[in-house]
């Protein structure tokens, strides 16, 4: 029986709850519930009309059953009936049922909305509150449609009761979150902001929540709230603790409102008005000062509330990031908390310092706490605190302390909780790469990572170490020596075998001079691991073996024996068998020269964003990581294939590139079969040249030039004087292979890898030379088989004259002198055109810079105009170019004038640039 029964306790409900609690087994409970459900159903269906009390009781029982975790598929109608009862207790249960159990039954929603409408219009504050709560609880679109215009009216009406205002504000907030398009604020904005001045602190608290959310979306509309919030905050902070009566919580004045006001202020930059700004600074200082005062109570509630305000104030200080003294004080305060006996405070101090570490004013101050944080990593009993310590070490890491931090993280990794190991591995790998001064340290660190936590080292991490070793000549010998030594361990992680196999296959020759690591020793060492490894690793090792045959002719016979063995040639795995057969054949028939060409050392990988950083970002979500500055972003993500084809060199060097591509999916024969029957649209009729995206590349070098359902072609290009290099990325968007893939340029034919795996990308490099000025762009023709159908695509490559620009800085005097020299009528081209895009100065500047010329300030007497200069480099000549762009805002027009020494150049550049605005 109930321990306490307040109000008009429903006896039947209490008995039912007791029965359920007395059930000895799950089965008994289900039986009891089914009995009750049958009873309620018959009562609801019965001929006799139920009185309000019974209806309420049964609806309440259904609710209880639902909360036990059982499905309820009836009773909704009865609950809706209760809504229109004029007895408060019945109405209240009705609303509770709807709030907990509502589904998107639209008929019901209409009835519910009707009841809500009546209650909102009742002018009875208790009923209005129930109705507003129901809207906020359900928050569905239909409700937003029905009430979004009514609620602001209730909120700002002069005669609304305070408690209703509070409900209305939070109800509006909820609707704004679920259906922002339906909640137009416009006319109400000023009056809502004014609620910050309300007498009633409960109203102010609710209104501040609403305003903060609205201000996050439309900061400009709510700018006026800043001064009101500062004033309010200042009054609270300076009030004596008794002034606010019941809004004082354990001797702390209105902690909830204070925190909300501080949050609202975090939607804005520091106030520009000096008086306001100093008032806010005073508030923040007062809050920081209070932290040093002796506590007014020993209760944890007191210190929690006080520190809650303090942490929020620190968050605002960090957000403003403009007052060095406040930042340093904040950092010192957090430093004290790092050693506090309350675990909660240590946790929050670590968390808060993470954001502080990214501010230039406080980065050094944060670094002084490194020893404490390292100590926390070693001694904290709670894993979530240790996790924060790892985050903070990562955030405070820079060149000066990287070695120590990485070493500490590595040693922590040995005992770290399994749940956070992978993340630590990624962090160590990123820091090691980012702050590597000498790459031997980097290689050691990664090998250590694999040794300590091999299972948590993802593909990305070991791909990355290989990319870096391949791209850096200075570390290759060391890497070979180190992996060789690491592989000596009797038990080593499979990831180490992968790295070892790859690196020895490429650079084993660098250590072969030493008899302790002679070719045969290297091979035997690798092969001793072979049988313990998974299929992908074995495939990689086979590739390493064929590379050995090229590097070390003396072990050719040994390796051929291995390849010839039944366990390879007749391996059940088709990939392994294929490799063994092909490699064996290759080693037998190819001459040394061919072998050397085919098995050439891997070309350097293109620089790209570190794949591990991308992975960590994905894991942590955006915004959680400080930006890593030194990684250049590439158009596309991972390309494991890389093929170097040179337009100027006709012999296509088909270098050996399959080593990294371990996961070659079995070509799906099924798809091929199906497609034989489908109508093949393989008519290689004149394909239309796609130039849709061409103009987008005039002022930039990277992006997607072509995309259809099957294929995406991305470009990344770089130019220097009259030379350029373009990386073309072919991305297979399907899950099926593209076969017979070829691409040709209308200038030079050349080969690419004929197969692109499903979901994979292939890269092709084009080298470009500008021989003389030109206006036609090259066309790239692509042909491949997808399923049975032959696909033809032609894309106009964005190689334009302006790509060969070198910007030229010059003084105003020089500019006008040259401008006059280029005064012949055919040297100047002028065009007046309508703006196609919004006329934005910054965008225009970026476009002109992207076009390739230098922007010259202070040349044109009218500061709204743009003046630029550059030189177009071709193999034979250089063509100087001056340009001037005059925007006319009123007319939404531009006038572009170009002067160069060659009329064809002026003409072409003008055509290209005028299309961009």
């Amino acid at each position, binding site marked *: 029986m*109930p*321990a*306490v*029964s*307040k*109000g*008009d306790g429903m006896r039947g409900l209490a008995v039912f*709850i007791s029965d359920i*609690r007395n059930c000895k087994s799950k089965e008994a409970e289900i039986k009891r519930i089914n009995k009750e459900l049958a009873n309620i159903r018959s009562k609801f269906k019965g001929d006799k009309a139920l009185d309000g009390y019974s209806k309420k009781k049964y609806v309440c029982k259904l*609710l*209880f059953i639902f*909360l036990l*975790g059982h499905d309820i598929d009836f009773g909704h109608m009865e609950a809706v009936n209760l809504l229109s009862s004029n*007895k408060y*207790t019945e109405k209240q249960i009705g609303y*509770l049922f709807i709030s907990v159990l509502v589904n998107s039954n639209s008929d019901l929603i209409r009835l519910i909305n009707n009841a809500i409408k009546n209650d909102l219009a009742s002018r*009875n*504050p*208790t*009923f209005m509150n129930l109705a507003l709560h129901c809207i*906020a609880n*359900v*928050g569905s679109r239909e409700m937003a449609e029905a009430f979004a215009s009514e609620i602001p009216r209730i909120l700002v009406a002069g005669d609304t009761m305070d*408690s209703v205002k*509070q*409900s209305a504000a*939070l*109800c509006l*907030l*909820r609707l704004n*979150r*679920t259906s922002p398009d339906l909640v137009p604020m416009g006319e109400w904005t000023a009056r809502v902001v004014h609620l910050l001045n309300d007498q009633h*602190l*409960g109203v102010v*608290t*609710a209104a501040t*929540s609403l305003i903060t959310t609205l201000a996050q979306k439309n900061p400009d509309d709510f700018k006026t709230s800043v001064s009101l919030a500062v004033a309010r905050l200042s009054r609270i902070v300076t009030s004596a603790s008794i002034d606010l*009566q*019941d*809004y004082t*919580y354990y001797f702390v004045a209105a902690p909830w*409102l204070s*925190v909300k006001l501080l*949050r609202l202020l975090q939607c804005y930059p520091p106030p520009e008005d000096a008086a306001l700004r100093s008032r806010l600074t005073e508030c923040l200082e007062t809050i920081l000062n209070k932290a040093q005062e002796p506590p007014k109570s020993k209760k944890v*509630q007191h210190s*929690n509330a006080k*520190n*809650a305000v303090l*942490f*929020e104030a620190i968050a605002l200080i960090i957000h403003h990031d403009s007052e060095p003294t406040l930042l340093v004080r904040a950092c010192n305060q957090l430093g004290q908390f790092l050693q506090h006996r309350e*675990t*909660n405070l*240590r946790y*929050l101090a670590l968390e808060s310092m993470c954001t502080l570490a990214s501010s230039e004013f406080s980065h050094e101050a944060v670094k002084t706490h490194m020893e404490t944080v390292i100590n926390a990593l070693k001694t904290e*009993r*709670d894993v*979530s*605190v240790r*996790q924060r310590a790892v985050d903070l070490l990562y955030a405070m890491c820079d060149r000066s302390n990287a070695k120590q931090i990485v070493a500490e993280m590595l040693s922590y990794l040995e005992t770290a909780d399994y749940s956070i190991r992978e993340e630590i591995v990624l962090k160590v790998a990123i820091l090691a790469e980012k702050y590597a001064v000498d790459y031997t340290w980097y290689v050691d660190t990664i090998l250590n990572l694999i040794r300590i936590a091999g299972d948590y080292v993802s593909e990305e991490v070991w791909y990355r170490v290989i990319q870096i070793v391949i791209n850096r000549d200075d570390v290759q010998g060391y890497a070979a020596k180190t992996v060789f030594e690491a592989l000596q361990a009797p038990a080593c992680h499979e990831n180490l075998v992968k790295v070892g196999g790859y690196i020895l296959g490429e650079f084993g020759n660098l250590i072969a001079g030493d008899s302790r690591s002679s070719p045969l020793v290297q091979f035997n060492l690798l092969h001793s691991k072979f049988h313990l490894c998974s299929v992908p690793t074995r495939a990689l090792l086979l590739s390493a073996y064929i590379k050995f045959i090229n590097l070390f002719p003396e072990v050719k016979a040994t390796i051929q024996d291995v390849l010839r063995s039944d366990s390879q040639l007749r391996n059940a795995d088709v990939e392994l068998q294929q490799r063994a057969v092909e490699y064996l054949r290759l080693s037998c028939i190819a001459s040394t020269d061919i072998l050397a060409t085919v098995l050439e050392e891997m070309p350097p990988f293109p620089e790209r964003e570190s794949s591990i950083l991308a992975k960590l970002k994905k894991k942590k*979500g955006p915004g959680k990581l400080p930006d890593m500055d030194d990684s250049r972003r590439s158009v596309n993500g991972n390309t494991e294939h890389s093929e170097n084809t040179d337009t100027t060199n006709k012999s296509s060097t088909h270098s050996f590139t399959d080593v990294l591509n371990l996961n070659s999916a079995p070509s799906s024969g099924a798809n091929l079969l199906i497609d034989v029957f489908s109508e093949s649209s393989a008519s290689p009729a004149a394909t239309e040249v796609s130039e849709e995206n061409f103009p987008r590349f005039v002022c930039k070098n990277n992006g997607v030039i072509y995309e259809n359902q099957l294929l995406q072609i991305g470009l990344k290009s770089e130019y220097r004087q009259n030379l350029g290099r373009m990386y073309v990325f072919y991305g297979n968007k399907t899950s099926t292979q593209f076969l017979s893939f070829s691409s040709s340029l209308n200038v030079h034919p050349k080969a690419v890898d004929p197969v692109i795996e499903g979901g994979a990308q292939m890269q092709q490099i084009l080298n470009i030379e500008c021989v003389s000025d030109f206006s036609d762009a090259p066309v790239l023709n692509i042909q491949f088989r997808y399923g049975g159908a032959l696909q033809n695509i032609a894309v106009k490559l964005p190689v334009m004259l302006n790509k060969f620009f070198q910007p030229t800085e010059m003084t105003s005097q020089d500019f006008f002198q040259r401008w006059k020299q280029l005064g012949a009528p055919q040297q100047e081209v002028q065009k007046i055109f309508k703006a196609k895009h919004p006329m934005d100065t910054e965008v225009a500047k970026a476009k002109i810079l992207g076009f390739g010329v230098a922007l010259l300030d202070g040349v044109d007497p009218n500061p709204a105009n743009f003046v630029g200069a550059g030189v177009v480099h071709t193999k034979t000549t250089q063509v100087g170019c001056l340009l001037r762009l005059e925007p006319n805002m009123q007319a939404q027009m531009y006038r572009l004038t170009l002067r160069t020494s060659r009329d064809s150049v002026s003409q072409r550049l003008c055509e290209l640039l005028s299309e961009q605005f």
Partner: protein
Amino acid sequence: MMRFMLLFSRQGKLRLQKWFTSMSDREKKKIIRDMTTMVLARQPRSCNFMQWKDLKIVYKRYASLYFCLGVESQENELLALEIIHRYVELLDKYFGNVCELDIIFNFEKAYFILDEFLMGGEIQETSKQIVNRSIEASDMLQEDDSSEWYEVELFG
């Protein structure tokens, strides 16, 4: 904002669930399962905060009941802890030395009190007096079922 509040016993029995955003039943069940296992596995004297997906989890144990609050990442953890405490105080005041059984047998009351205190995932009224007064007022309405609302306005 707060996303949800859960009350469960040391045995992992759910006693109260409040969701401040719409979620499918499956999602709710998953969250309930994750929260009970995570929170119950915590060592004593650990800190009261955890990271879970993109949410901060703030929890505290009162006698045999765990109160567990899921809040968005920009929320203030310490104050979330005090939201839990204030709710416990409100229950305490209403039931007089509240225990788990009170919440089991009067679950609807526990909901009504929560609704006076929180709304739409934000705190609605932080004053204990005001919340208590409005709860008492609605109880008066319950005891005198036939009374009309305006008679009770005296208490509101």
